[in-house]
């Protein structure tokens, strides 16, 4: 586990690899600047972690307890706080600024964020069901078909795919490549798509590779 960073999705574009000439689809992410607002250690909290804050706001946007918490780190009012578990907190200090330079070009990262909310979505959109035929007298267009057997079991099994709320959920996209960084403007160019619309809050952490030594 290692410390990540909070950021905002700005949008997608493409850049070119100058050597091979291939076009690379990239998402532009504003990563930071983040401030370390709290450091938890084994002695004080029973576990080690670093809490960071992101996105400066007006003072009136936060409550007094929130402002009091940030005051301990002498940080400006920040909208989002997030904690990252880490084994080694010695390298961090309160009020320290973290930016895009936390990552190098070529690094592999995990990105989590909220997906685009699609509201109450039907079978086709939510579960990729097939559609019924539109013509030849058919009245079955977007219906689900059978949801199970009859008198036995006499009920629909739990977990049956049905229409319902789709999207607006926290997801993590794993093992995305950082193509380019701009430490001055705190920008990360990440190959591929990330959750949410432009403006969405993202958490970017070094990739969690299963089986790798921590």
């Amino acid at each position, binding site marked *: 586990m290692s410390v990540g960073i909070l950021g905002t999705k700005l949008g997608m*574009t493409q*850049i*070119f*690899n*100058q050597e091979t*000439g291939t*076009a690379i689809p990239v998402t*532009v992410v504003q990563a930071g600047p983040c401030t370390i607002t709290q450091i938890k250690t084994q002695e004080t909290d029973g576990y080690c972690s670093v809490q960071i804050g992101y996105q400066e706001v007006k003072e009136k946007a936060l409550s007094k307890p929130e402002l009091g918490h940030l005051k301990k780190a002498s940080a400006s009012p920040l909208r989002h706080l997030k904690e990252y578990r880490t084994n080694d907190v010695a390298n961090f200090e309160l009020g320290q600024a973290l930016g895009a330079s936390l990552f190098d070009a070529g690094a592999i990262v995990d990105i989590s964020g909220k997906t685009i909310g699609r509201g109450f979505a039907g079978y086709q959109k939510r579960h990729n069901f097939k559609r019924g035929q539109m013509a030849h007298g058919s009245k079955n267009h977007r219906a689900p078909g059978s949801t199970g057997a009859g008198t036995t079991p006499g009920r629909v099994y739990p977990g049956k795919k049905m229409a319902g709320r789709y999207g607006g959920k926290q997801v993590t996209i794993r093992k995305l490549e950082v193509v380019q960084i701009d430490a001055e403007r705190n920008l990360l160019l990440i190959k591929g798509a990330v959750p949410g619309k*432009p403006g969405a809050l993202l958490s970017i952490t070094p990739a969690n590779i299963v089986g790798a030594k921590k």
Partner: protein
Amino acid sequence: MNAEAIIRSIEAEYLKSDLPEIYVGDSVEVGVKIKEGAKERVQPYKGTVIAMRNGGINETITVRKTFQGVGVERVFLLNSPLVSYIKVERRGRVRRAKLYYLRDRVGKATRIKQRFDRPL
């Protein structure tokens, strides 16, 4: 700086400034970089522009030619480093933005009238 301006500034590094003005109906020669083993060379591709897509960094042209009696169409990403040069050889007079009707024509019917009011 807002999100759009930031993305534009990233794209600006990759946009070519020396692209000629291309219109649909023009005859063009496109130099395509080709890698053969360790060697790299530029192969010319001549044909008629039958479609354009204006997409900033994603701008493309579709170039059609007839090669050994077979119609060939290639889509070129104009800002790609693989496109080393583009030369406009002849301006054409057409009345459509997309010349897909040329796909159904052969021989003399595929000719496009030249226009002289646009400089090369």
